[in-house]
C-alpha cells in the first residue's frame, strides 16, 4: 500500500498529462483534466517551499537549545526569519507595513538587505575564478590547450577592447569567432548534449510513469 498508491498516482497523472498533449486543452475533457492536475501541482509544490523554512528554523533552534558553538548566529537566523515572515502574513488593511507589496517591511528588507547581499555573495566568484585561472588553467595536453586557446579568444571577442584588438589582424575576426566558434563548434556540442540529455530525461520520465523508477520515494 505504501508503494502501490504512489506508483498508481504517478502512473495516472503521468499518462493523463502525456496523452493530453495530443488533444485541445480548452475543448476536450482530458485537456481540462490536465489543466486541473497542473493547478494542483503548483499548490502541492508551492507548499513544499515552506519545508525549507521549517527545516532551517528547527536546525537553528536545536543549536540554540544545545548552546552549540556559534549559537548566537542561530539566534540571528531565527529572529530574521520571523522579522521577515510574520509581517508578510498579516493583512495589508491593518498597516501598509504588512503584506508583500511595495512599502511593506517584507519588500523593504528584501530589496535593501537581501538583494545586495545575495548579489555580493555571487560577485565574489569573480575573484575565485581569476585565482583559479592563474593556478589551475594549464596547457598540459592537446585537449586542455584547445580549451585554453578558445577561452582566451572568446574572452577577447566579448569585450570592446578585445574586439578592437582582434580587428587589427582582420576586420572580420570577431565575426568569425562568433560564426565558427560560437555558432559552429559550440552550437554543435551544445546540440549534442541537449539531444542526449533530452533523450535521457524522456526515458527516465517514462520509467517513472511506468513505476520502474521509484527512487523518488526514498527508503522504507
Amino acid at each position: 500500500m505504501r508503494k502501490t498508491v504512489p506508483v498508481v498516482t504517478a502512473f495516472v497523472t503521468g499518462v493523463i498529462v502525456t496523452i493530453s498533449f495530443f488533444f485541445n486543452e480548452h475543448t476536450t475533457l482530458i485537456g481540462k483534466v490536465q489543466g486541473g492536475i497542473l493547478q494542483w501541482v503548483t499548490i502541492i509544490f508551492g507548499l513544499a517551499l515552506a519545508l525549507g523554512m521549517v527545516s532551517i528554523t528547527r536546525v537553528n533552534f536545536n543549536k540554540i537549545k544545545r548552546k552549540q558553538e556559534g549559537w548566537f548566529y542561530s539566534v540571528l537566523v531565527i529572529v530574521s526569519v520571523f522579522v521577515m515572515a510574520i509581517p508578510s502574513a498579516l493583512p495589508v488593511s491593518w498597516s501598509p507595513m504588512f503584506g508583500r507589496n511595495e512599502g511593506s517591511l517584507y519588500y523593504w528588507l528584501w530589496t535593501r538587505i537581501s538583494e545586495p547581499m545575495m548579489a555580493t555573495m555571487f560577485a565574489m566568484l569573480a575573484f575565485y575564478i581569476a585565482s583559479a585561472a592563474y593556478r589551475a588553467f594549464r596547457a598540459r595536453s592537446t585537449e586542455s590547450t584547445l580549451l585554453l586557446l578558445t577561452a582566451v579568444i572568446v574572452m577577447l571577442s566579448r569585450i570592446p577592447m578585445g574586439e578592437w584588438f582582434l580587428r587589427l589582424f582582420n576586420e572580420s575576426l570577431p565575426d568569425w569567432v562568433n560564426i565558427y566558434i560560437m555558432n559552429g563548434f559550440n552550437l554543435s556540442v551544445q546540440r549534442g548534449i541537449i539531444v542526449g540529455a533530452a533523450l535521457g530525461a524522456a526515458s527516465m520520465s517514462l520509467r517513472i510513469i511506468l513505476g520502474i523508477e521509484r527512487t523518488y520515494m526514498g527508503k522504507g
Partner: protein
Amino acid sequence: MTPFSPIELWLMAFVTLAIFSFLYKDNPVYRLVESIFAGLSAGYYFGLVWDTVLMQQVVDPIKTDSSNLYLIIPALLGILLFSRLTQKWSYLSRVPLAFVIGSTSGIFITSRLQGLVLPQIRTTFMPQNVPGGSTDPWMIVVLSTIVVVGVIATLVYFYFSHEHKGVIGWTARLGIWFIMISFGAHFGYTVMGRVSLLIGRVQFLVEDWIGSFTG
C-alpha cells in the same frame, strides 16, 4: 539616479562590504550578515507560500466561491509533504510527491522529444543560417559541416554502450576536441558572467553609494 534614500544606501553598502570582507578572511561581521541573509531568505519563502499559494490559490478562491472547496485536497496533499520531517510518517509524503513527479514526467516526455530532440536534429541536417545573414555559399558549407560533424562526434563521445575503438574511437576522439572548444567558449563566457556580477557591485558602491556623497 537611485530610488534609495541615503540611509538605505549606507545600509546596502555596509552589507556589501561585510560580505566582501570574507575575501580577506572569515570574520564575525561576515558571519553576522550571512546569518541574517539565511534567515531573511527563509522568511521570504514563508511570505511567498503564505500569500501566493495558501491565500491566492486556496483560501481566497474558496471564500469567493464555495464550489472551489475541492482545492482543499491539493492543500492537504501539500501539507502531507511535511511528514518528511518525521521518520515514522515520512511515507505519507510519497503520494503528493508521486502526483508532482508523475505529472511533471508527463510534460517531460512530450516536451523533451517534440521541443528539443526533433527541432535540434532536424535543423542539424539543414543548411545553417550564417549569423549576420551572409549568403556566401562557402561559409554556409563550412558552418553546416562543422555543425553536422560536431553533433555526431559529441553524441558518439557520450555513447558508452560500445567500446571506443576503430571508427567509433576516432569519432569520439574528434568529439572530445569539439567538446574542449565548446567548453573553452563556455569558460570564457563564465568568466564574463562572474566578472559582470562583480562589476555590478562595484558599480553600486561607486555610482550609487559614493556617488550620493556628491549628489
